[in-house]
């Protein structure tokens, strides 16, 4: 049984499908996420595909401070995703509300609404920083599987 579990875990790390949701960001980080899929950075070499529906996705990549209106949308999307699922917060707004903290319609970043696995600071977080963040997340999962 151990062998099958190890194979499934390795497969899970080699094909992380991402779903992108912009919870009220200035869309600089969203552009950088999509730019990471284009030829110069090409996330597909890690097996990463951008998927449209939460049913198909493993990693929810969120950018933007959670505005009041997107708060319950983010929760619904997070609940739609099948286990095992992770959330990556891209950009300073997603990490902590960034420059919009204190505005009346804005929360304090993604972790105030759903559990976040990795934080990628930057305003916007460059495609290299996003790749670095995802690689670090996958590496930490690998260690967890080994234990």
């Amino acid at each position, binding site marked *: 049984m151990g062998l099958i579990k190890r194979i499934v875990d390795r497969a899970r790390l080699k094909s992380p499908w991402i779903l992108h949701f912009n919870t009220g960001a200035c869309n600089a980080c969203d552009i950088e996420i999509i730019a990471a899929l284009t030829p110069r950075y090409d996330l597909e070499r890690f097996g990463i595909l951008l998927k449209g529906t939460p049913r198909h996705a493993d990693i929810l990549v969120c950018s933007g401070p959670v*505005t*009041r*209106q997107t708060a319950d949308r983010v929760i619904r999307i997070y609940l739609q995703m099948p286990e095992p699922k992770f959330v990556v917060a891209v950009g300073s707004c997603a990490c902590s509300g960034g420059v919009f903290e*204190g*505005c*009346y*319609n804005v929360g304090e970043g993604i972790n105030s609404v759903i559990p976040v696995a990795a934080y990628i600071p930057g305003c916007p977080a460059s495609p290299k920083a996003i790749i670095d963040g995802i690689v670090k997340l996958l590496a930490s999962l690998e260690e967890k599987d080994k234990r």
Partner: protein
Amino acid sequence: MSTEEKIQQELLKRFSFLDGKVRLQRAKRLFADVPLDDFAAVLEYASRELRFPILLTITGLDEGEDLGFIYHLAREDGVTLNLKINVKKDGPSIRTVTAYFPGAEIYERELVDLLGARIEGLREGERYPLPDGWPQGQYPLRKDWNAKALKDKEAE
């Protein structure tokens, strides 16, 4: 005699109550304070005869006990005329300008939501820009309002 001064003279000639209230701040920037009840006539005159076809936007101001609305009009050659009217906070409601500028609907809906302006003749539609769950009677752009007021209102 640049075009801006010509427009200023025509305005003053047409509406005597405006003299002393039309300022030429710099090239292409005309500011005018207009009393509330003649506003419709001035707007009609500006958009038709003076050929100001574009309404850039409507700015809402909270000036102590009354609300200020600035209608920014612009012409093809770049000259902008900014008409300002004042309304008491609990005073009469103002007429919508969608008759002259169909695009003004959004700007007026934003005034209603953020400043609590009362605009009659506005078509029924989705609220904007605040979320649906926003408590009634909270107008974020009012000077006496701040984020904490909302948080403790929700705490009740």
